[in-house]
């Protein structure tokens, strides 16, 4: 496995910007990869695994972010993370309402026990 560094420029499309709920999704997704991932806005670097780091970017609608990943799954991480931002997290739970209560209930155990959800 080769150690590659890749980066991608993305534009925040959500009218709300990269707010807490989407930042949480972004961070959780970033943690699924082995690569070291950073997000850069106007020269400020944020660790993709830290929600405080990501929120401190204050990425509003139209903000241009560079996502930079280093590791064997760097390319894949970029594809997925850039996809989340460019689609305004359209794929799933971020926009859900009714089912989220059950989701909250399962959240605590879901980290260790994904298949039981």
């Amino acid at each position, binding site marked *: 496995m080769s150690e590659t560094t890749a980066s991608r420029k993305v534009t925040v499309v959500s*009218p*709300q*910007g*990269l*707010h*807490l*709920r989407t930042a*949480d999704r972004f961070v959780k997704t970033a943690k699924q990869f082995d690569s070291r991932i950073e997000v850069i806005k106007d020269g400020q670097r944020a660790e993709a695994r830290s*929600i*405080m*780091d990501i*929120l*401190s*970017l*204050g*990425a*509003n*609608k139209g903000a241009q972010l560079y996502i930079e990943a280093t590791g064997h799954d760097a390319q894949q991480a970029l594809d997925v993370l850039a996809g989340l931002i460019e689609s305004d997290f359209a794929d799933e739970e971020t926009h*859900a*309402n009714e089912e*989220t*209560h059950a989701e*909250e209930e399962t*959240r*605590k155990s879901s980290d260790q026990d994904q298949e039981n959800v």
Partner: protein
Amino acid sequence: MKFADFVSVEAIQSGLEAEDKEEVIRELIQALLDVGKIDGDQMDSIVGAVMKREELGSTGIGRGVAVPHTKHPSVERLVGTVGVSKPGVDFNSLDGEKVQLFFVLVSPPDRPGDHLRALENISRQLRNETFCKFLKQADSVEDIRSLLTEADNNEFVS
């Protein structure tokens, strides 16, 4: 954006007494109501909206910090305040830890930018461990006020 732009100083709570999530949210919103930042008849509606937002995922962002918030049509500008709980409150935080530091935010529905800039300021300042620790140790409203002012003057983060 600075703390002074959205933290209602008169509503700061140095000794939150609540022991669970709904109680602590109620205590913080009550503090805003007591100083006239929100309307009395909107209290239940705002507490309900903040709780509903928590159901989508906890606003406990780790390090003992939570940012319970909602949009609400009854406010004309972003209002918020700070509360400290010495024993901490179980808040289903993202890192599973109890929360000692609360920043509550209520914003007008059409001003997402202000909300985002408040979040940006809170997380930027609280990434500084000294500031975070001092706030949790603050014993009085006066202590909290001075810490926020020092943070606004970039004494913790430049």
